[in-house]
Every structure is written in C-alpha cells, then in structure tokens.
C-alpha cells in the first residue's frame, strides 16, 4: 500500500483513477509460404479496411478535440494505406511469391522506411516514422494483436507509458484520460506541453512506472509536486481528494480574475504577459487573462522544415499574433537559433561550447539577408497591432547598434515603397548576458526596453551549463548575485524612463514575484497557465512593503537564505 514514486511535475492538477498501461506490443513477423493466395489477399484487404476505419475515427476525434491541423497527420496515414506504390508490390508478392501478407507488407514498408530514412532532411526522416506507425497498425490486425488506441478509451483512467508519441497524445480524450505518467521526458517535451494545453495533470520522467504499475491499480498523480502514489490507502485517497478540491476551488477563483487588471494592494499596476511559440498559442494566453505577450519565440517558424520560411509566410504568422492580441503589447524576439537549437538546413559546425558560441544575434548579424527578411516581415506585419521587437543574446552595444541600423534601413526602404508600417514600434533587447546587465545604464539610453531572460542570465552568471545535471545545484534564481544584476538593469532603465520585463521561468515563480515587485519590474511574462495564479498573488502584495525588504534581501549571502526569508514574509503578510 501507498507506494510512492516521483518524477517531474509537467502539468498542474491532481487526478485519482485506475492505471491504464499504454504499451507498444512487439509484432513478430515470420515468413511463411501460403497455398491460397486469394484467401491471403482477402485477409490483407480486411486488415487494411479495419485499419482505415480506425484511422477515420481517430482523425474525426482529433479534429473535434484538437484542430484540423493535428488531424491532418491521420489524413496522410490514410493516403499511405491507399497508396498504389505500396499496395502494388505487396499484392504482387502475395500472388507471385506465395508469401504471407505480414511478410509482404513488412518487406515493402521497410523498403520505403529505408528510403525516407536515408534522406538528408529531418522532415523526410520523420516521415519514416509515419510509415512505421501505419504499417504497425495493419500488421497488428493481421497478427490478431490488439493495438491500443488512446482515443478509444471510454473509462476514467491515468495513462502509464514509457513515453507518449505526438500521435498518442493528440488522441487523449480529457473526458476519460484524467492524467498521465511517463518514464521518460521533461517539462518541455511535446507530451508535457500538450498536457498543459489540455489541462490534464501529468508527471513525466518518472523512470520506473512501467515496471511498477499494473493495469487497474489505483494511482494518484500529483502534477503540482511531481508525486505518484500507487495503491493508496483510504486515508491517502481522502487527503488527495481534499487537495484536489482545494486546487480546483483555487483554480475557479483564479478564473474570476481573468478580466481583472493586475494591481497590488497599494494600487500599483504591473503587466502580466505570456511566452508563446506559435500563433496557435495566443488563444490560451487570452483565455488565461494575459495582458500582453512578453516573448514570442520565432524559432518555431524556422524549425521542422527544409529551408528558411519565406517573407510572406512570416508576415502571416506575425500578423496573426498581432491581430489576435487586438492592440495589446506583443514582444517578438528575433531568431534565436544556434547553441542547442539547430536547423537542419543551416549546416553549422559542431562547437565545443554551443551556449557560448555562434548563435542568436551573432548568427543573425552574419547571415544578414536572412535577418533582413525577418525584420521586413515584422515591419510589414506591424500595422496589425502593438508590435515590439527585441534582439536576443546582446553582449555589446555595437551589436545592438548594428541590428538597429539594419532595422532602420529596412524600414526606410519599405516607407519609400509606401508600404504601411506602424509608427510606434519599440526596439529593445534581451538581457541575458552579464556584461549587458552590468552596462545597462549605457544601453538604457539607446534601447526602448529591456527584457530579462533569466534562464540564460543565471547560466552565464553562475557559469553552469543548464543541461548538465551535475552542476544543476548552481542554477540558483535567488542567488543574490542574480538579484543584484536584475536590480542594476531595472534601476538603469527607470532612470531613462524605459520599462523592464522578464521572460524566464523566474517571472512566474511565487518566491520570485514578491522580490521582483520590490525591485520594480514592470512586466512579468510566463507560461499562460501561470498567469492567473500570479495575478491572485500580486493582488494581495503591497509594492511599498516589498520595497522595504529589498535591501535586506540583496545583502543576504545565499540563495537559500533569500528563499527562506521570502517564504516567511509572504506568509505573514
């Protein structure tokens, strides 16, 4: 009873339900000779028909629950199952070579899988996975093995899996799937992001759930803490039912704050924004009461394809975000690629220290044409809303000046052609390199705003690779060194009448929020799903009160001291 496991908290909420193991059955294909090829062909056709009707159902369900774009993957799967180039050779093998359908299918499919896998292009390589996926479905029918379709679950369950593929995740019906736990994955893996979009509790990276949880066992998944309890006793269930009710009540109370401005108890207004990756994310921002977009990561436009996105395609994406935001501030970050984020069509040599290497603005300034295209697209989209542009990874004032010159140059060219451009575009920078934080007073005279990117600022200040688990103890958002840098930036900006935002994980953290408020941060940008919680916290805080604690906090020696202190004062106030 009460076996406890833990993993990474990936999506908020608590669920208690029966475990449902989502397994990939092993399909073993043997080559056999058949005597009646017509009967074998019939068997193959019937497996095809069953697979197609399953895919039609999954497709319809995906279109209904998600959107047409996610459903399109299943249209492609259906086309593969009626592809003459695939079916022809299979039929021929069965008829002429008298082999069983399983073998004929696998051999033919493997030929195509090999063909796509050998292509020098990530997109094509992924198509091999699609062929494997559909082939598996037909094979399972031929072998009489049942293949699990998460979309066919009609009982309240918690999914237990090694990992969830994108096509598994899109099939999860939140009506029945109350939560999921996977052995691998992290907070930013596809399945974790999707869980947050669907708002179902999830714990990922739990390592041993597949080996310790059987079908039908009662499981509690606590997506707030990353805890899993297997076979809980009545008392534990009751206490989690209680926690769940409290969380849900809190959530509905937060929901009331959706259209409220974010004003502290002493009447000071701050702006709560969201970080997004694609135009599709805007709906969630508005739903969670976002007052702005503090970071639109444009890299997703450039990823998962063969070549740079065309200018018109970019205009369309930027304009879509701006229109949906309907005049609310929208900060777009120019391309931040390189380092750990690669583009297959941009053949960059491997580097010893990618985080310290050729990336972001460094790369954009060298690949000027690509950068100019993005700036033109942003300028052309600007009339649709309240656009602000920021450059990532600025280390020196020259880099900013160079980027700004290119921006002004493209602007002048478009104006000459009488193309309509917003007159109020602000141009700012990300502050994520300590040199820039230290020199903030110099930058503040030339930029329109700062946005502090804490994930990188912490990594660079502490000289600790955030991908390296052995030095993860150095990832300390509350280390006074970081807080002092943040103060330098905010003070310098305010002196010149400029505003400062923050767009790292820290901006949505309940310990960081009171400190940042005291330091005078103007805009907090976080995951959309954190906004209402942050708003509810800020409404209860007094800015003047927090300002009085600032000096004490900044003179502390360790991250731990700061954390303990803030916890204490936020409880008593």
């Amino acid at each position: 009873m009460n076996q406890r496991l833990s993993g990474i908290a990936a999506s908020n909420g608590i669920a208690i339900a029966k475990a449902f193991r989502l397994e990939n059955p092993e399909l073993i294909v043997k080559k056999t000779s058949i005597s009646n090829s017509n009967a074998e062909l019939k068997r193959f056709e019937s497996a095809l028909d069953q697979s197609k009707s399953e895919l039609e159902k999954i497709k319809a369900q995906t279109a209904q629950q998600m959107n047409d774009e996610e459903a399109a993957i299943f249209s492609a799967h259906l086309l593969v199952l009626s592809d003459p180039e695939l079916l022809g050779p299979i039929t021929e093998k069965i008829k002429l070579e008298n082999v069983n359908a399983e073998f004929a299918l696998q051999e033919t499919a493997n030929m195509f899988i090999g063909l796509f896998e050998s292509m020098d292009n990530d997109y094509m390589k992924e198509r091999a996975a699609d062929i494997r996926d559909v082939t598996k479905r037909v094979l399972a029918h031929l072998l009489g093995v049942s293949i699990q379709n998460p979309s066919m679950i009609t009982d309240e369950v918690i999914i237990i899996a090694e990992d969830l593929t994108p096509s598994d995740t899109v099939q999860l019906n939140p009506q029945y799937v109350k939560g999921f736990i996977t052995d691998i994955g992290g907070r930013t893996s596809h399945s974790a992001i999707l869980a947050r979009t669907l708002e179902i509790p999830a714990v990922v990276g739990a390592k041993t759930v597949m080996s310790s949880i059987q079908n039908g066992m009662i499981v509690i998944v606590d997506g707030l803490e990353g805890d899993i309890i297997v076979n809980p006793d009545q008392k534990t269930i009751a206490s989690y039912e209680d926690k769940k009710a409290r969380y849900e009540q809190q959530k509905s109370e937060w929901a009331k704050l959706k259209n409220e401005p974010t004003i502290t108890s002493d009447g000071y207004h701050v702006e709560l924004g969201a970080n997004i990756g694609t135009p599709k994310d805007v709906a969630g921002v508005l739903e969670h009461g976002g007052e702005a977009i503090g970071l639109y990561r444009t890299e997703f436009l450039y990823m998962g394809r063969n070549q740079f996105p065309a200018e018109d395609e970019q205009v369309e994406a930027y304009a879509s975000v701006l229109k949906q935001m309907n005049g609310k501030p929208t900060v777009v970050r120019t391309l931040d690629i390189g380092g750990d984020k690669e583009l297959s069509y941009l053949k960059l040599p491997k580097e010893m220290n990618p985080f310290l290497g050729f990336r972001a603005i460094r790369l954009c300034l060298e690949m000027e044409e690509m950068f100019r295209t993005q700036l033109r697209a942003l300028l052309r989209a600007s009339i649709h809303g309240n656009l602000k542009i920021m450059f990532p990874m600025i280390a020196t004032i020259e880099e900013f000046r160079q980027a700004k010159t290119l921006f002004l140059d493209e602007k002048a060219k478009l104006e000459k052609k009488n193309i309509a451009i917003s007159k109020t575009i602000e141009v700012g920078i990300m502050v994520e390199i300590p040199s820039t934080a230290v020199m903030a007073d110099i930058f503040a005279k030339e930029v329109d705003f700062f946005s502090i990117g804490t994930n990188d600022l912490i990594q660079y200040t502490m000289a600790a690779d955030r991908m390296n688990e052995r030095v993860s103890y150095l990832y300390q958002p509350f280390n006074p060194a970081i807080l002092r840098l943040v103060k330098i930036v905010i003070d310098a900006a305010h002196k010149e009448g400029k505003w400062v935002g923050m767009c790292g994980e820290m901006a949505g953290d309940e310990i960081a929020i009171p400190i940042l408020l005291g330091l005078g941060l103007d805009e907090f940008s976080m995951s959309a799903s954190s906004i209402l919680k942050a708003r509810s916290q800020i409404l209860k805080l007094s800015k003047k009160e927090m300002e009085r604690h600032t000096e004490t906090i900044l003179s502390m020696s360790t991250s731990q001291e700061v954390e303990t202190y803030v916890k204490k004062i936020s409880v008593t106030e």
Partner: protein
Amino acid sequence: MIEKQYNITSAEGIHARPAAVLVGALAPYKSEITLEWNDKKVNLKSILGVMSLGVSSGASITISANGEDEEHAMAKVAEIMETQGIGN
C-alpha cells in the same frame, strides 16, 4: 496523353500538406498520372512516391496524364495547383 509544365511557387515545395491534397484529389481518376522532376518520374497518385521526390520551391516539374479521363484529371491538377498556391 496530356502533358503540362508547372513552376512550383509554394514556399514549402510539394511536401507535406500540398502533396497530400494533390494525391488525395487525384485518387478517383482512372488515368495514369505522373510527376517528373530531375529526371525522376513518380506516380502522382502515390503519396510515398511524391514525397520521396521532395520537390522544392522554385522547381520546374512536368505532370502528365494518360487515360480515358485525362482531360478531367489535368483540369483537377490545374485547379489544385492554383487554389492551394502550389504553382503555376
């Protein structure tokens, strides 16, 4: 047999979505329909064939149809090329 040349203007070439739309729409036709590019010819009714070709933006391709409904098939190709913004 009818043959026609197209210039591919879609930024993504004939890859994911455009390929699926083309192939899906041509399935009902009886004619043999092919796509030729870079000296390689594939069956335009085969999603795997079309995708394996990886036609990129700016390519000049030849599409031909041969069979009883070849005219209708070619008209359909032209319609999809235009409405989906694939090429002209």
